[in-house]
């Protein structure tokens, strides 16, 4: 008796992968041109600039001399802490003040008051004006000798003599922060308004029925819902302000007597007024390290939000 072997199922044809790419390889391939360009126009100049920090080099002249860590020591033994402090004062001021104003306006516009669409457009106006133009505009307003602000304050009897808003250490930084606030509160307002509009109305109604007043509702309902957007907005604005240049340069050029000097203006002045490219890139390197810390915080926050 012979037993017939049960018919064997033919093995499935082997999947041909030799001519195909894995998703990972494909992704790498797609990003390769971008990475190549990034390397050529960002990464190489960046490394080159950092490398220059170890040389004494005049922007006007050919040749350079290796000086080790001298350029870094020049800053760390000199003005680094002062510049850092001033950069932080500007950054914190120019982040928090527009945030408060932007949030207040966003809350007001979110109530659905009449003409809120028009007001939203109107408030966006400062944001669409180029930063340099905004700075020039405010420079005229703050001008010590024929500025509008002094004229108005004198007419109103608040001051008897002109104040050099941009020419005094105390008021110069304030003036710079006011100008930057005017330019950046609309962006914050729009972002926060978008966040506020995602808060379900039912939550507010339920809280009201439970007897919560407007302040309690803000802290118990609104804030927890927009905290994520607010933290991103604050952090992004903080990072941008940490690198901000045009407002400060146009209004004060880092003066008077260096009291509004930030990393951005100091690097510019050193490189393009002092032509000392070695010291400028050394300061740029130190500045970049601090910025990397901020970027790490930003990535951490966005990652957390992504995981949630």
């Amino acid at each position, binding site marked *: 008796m012979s037993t017939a072997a049960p018919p064997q199922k033919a093995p499935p044809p082997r999947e041909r992968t030799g*001519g195909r*790419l*894995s998703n990972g390889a*494909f992704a790498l391939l797609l990003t390769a041109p971008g990475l*190549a360009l990034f390397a*050529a*126009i960002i990464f190489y100049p960046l490394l080159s600039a950092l490398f220059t920090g170890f040389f004494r080099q005049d922007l006007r002249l050919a040749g350079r001399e290796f000086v080790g860590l001298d350029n870094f020591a020049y800053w760390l033994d000199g003005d680094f802490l002062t510049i850092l402090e001033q950069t932080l004062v500007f950054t914190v001021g120019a982040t928090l003040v527009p945030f408060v104003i932007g949030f207040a306006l966003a809350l007001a516009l979110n109530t659905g008051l009449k003409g809120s669409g028009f007001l939203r457009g109107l408030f966006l106006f400062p944001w669409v004006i180029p930063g340099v133009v905004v700075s020039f505009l405010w420079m005229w307003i703050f001008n010590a000798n024929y500025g509008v602000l002094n004229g108005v304050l004198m007419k109103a009897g608040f001051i008897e003599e002109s104040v050099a808003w941009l*020419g*005094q250490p105390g008021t110069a930084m304030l003036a710079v922060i006011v100008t930057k606030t005017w330019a950046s509160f609309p962006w914050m307002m729009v972002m926060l308004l978008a966040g506020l509009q995602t808060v379900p109305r039912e939550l507010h109604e339920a809280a009201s029925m439970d007897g919560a007043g407007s302040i309690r509702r803000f802290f118990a309902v609104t804030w927890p819902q927009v905290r994520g957007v607010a933290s991103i907005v604050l952090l992004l604005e903080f990072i941008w302000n940490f690198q901000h240049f045009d407002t400060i340069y146009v209004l004060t050029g880092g003066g008077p007597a260096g009291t509004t000097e930030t990393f951005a203006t100091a690097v510019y002045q050193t490189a393009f007024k002092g032509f000392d490219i070695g010291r400028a890139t050394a300061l740029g390197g130190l500045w970049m390290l601090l910025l990397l810390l901020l970027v790490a915080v930003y990535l951490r926050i966005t990652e957390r939000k992504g995981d949630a």
Partner: protein
Amino acid sequence: MTTSGISRRGALRMFGIGALGAVGAGVLGACAPSGAGSPSNGGDPKSKDFDFTSWSLNEEAAKPSIEKIIAAWEKAEKSTIRAVSYPYNEYLSQLTLKLGGGETTGAVHLDIAWLAAMAQMGKLVDLGSVAGKGGYTDVALKSGTYDGKHYGLPWNTGSIGVIANSQLLEKAGIKEHPTTVEEFESALRELKGLGGGVVPYAAATKVAQLKDIFPWMQTFGCAMLDGGKVTIGDDASVDAVTWYKKLHDEKLIAADVDRFDARALFGQGKAAFYDDAIIGKGVTSAQSKDKTLADAMQPMERPVLKAGDTPQALLWGGVIAIVKGKGQDAATEFALHTTTDRATTSEYFAARALPPSTTAGLAAPEVAKDTFTTEWTRKITSTATGSPFWQFAQNAQIEEAVAKQVQAVLVGKSKPKDAMKQAGEEAAALIKR
């Protein structure tokens, strides 16, 4: 294992595109400006077309008359001149970058204070063979010289001095120009008494023009540089800055003023004195609504510390330099024509009140008969000297280092003695670099 569905051939194609992108970026890099190391900025030196770079093309009062010179040249030579400009306060840094990067060619208008810095970049043509043909005055010719070579053909030569508003002086009961520092201070107090927001002396207090304090330092007896040694920080310089601070604190000079603010204040009849070059009359009166202001503007000898001292003033002027490379021959001819052609210099003088730099140009009746110009030459230019720091490529940085320290004193961040010591040390370090 998941696959993307792309074939090796397709992948290779994409990789090829990526490689092309990278090569393109490399090419971009290779096309980048040649940098400070290259002696010429490239192009055909025989080309009839060239660039002309000047800060004056950025100023409303000056632009039309320079454009007229350019248009006349283009018509006569059937060539094209590309006009390039940057604002005065940004000019040096912009020009340095563009020149170093190989982007600037042709003729370049330079303040005489910047000649050393530009010449050291090694990109300017030695104009020795043509400078002698121009009939320039000795002082003018010297202003275009660095390290024994003629790098600039002098266009205008004058000085920076004090301009007074005779109407305001009269209002305050001041009959004659003050001649000593003491008299000057008294006059400023009288003028302050007029009220109405009058700034008696619109002296520079912003860093950009605080180099104007140098003649005051010299007035107080500071040589600034003596046998290669920086003397800023000596008693005379400290006295000068202490005095300047006193004027600032008594509001006899105003905070936050540069040349442009000073001209505006003077033009509004709100300043009785300010420092400017001879060009100031044309610029300030043109922007003033008061059509009688031009007649009220008077050049004034800078007050001296004690009677008998020599009034101090800073030489001032512009030269036209030529960049090695495209159009250098035609640009040289253009520079020679612009600075020496009698009709051109006379017309330019009529438009801008800027005296020419040639003996023939100065002898032209319209120049010789101009009271303001002759008075200016007699009272200010006759004793003017160049800054001792002009010989150094780091002149601009030295001026800025001193200016920053003076400003620190004015705003109360530093004491005059400490600030001047620091300024002197910084200047000395910059010279050594």
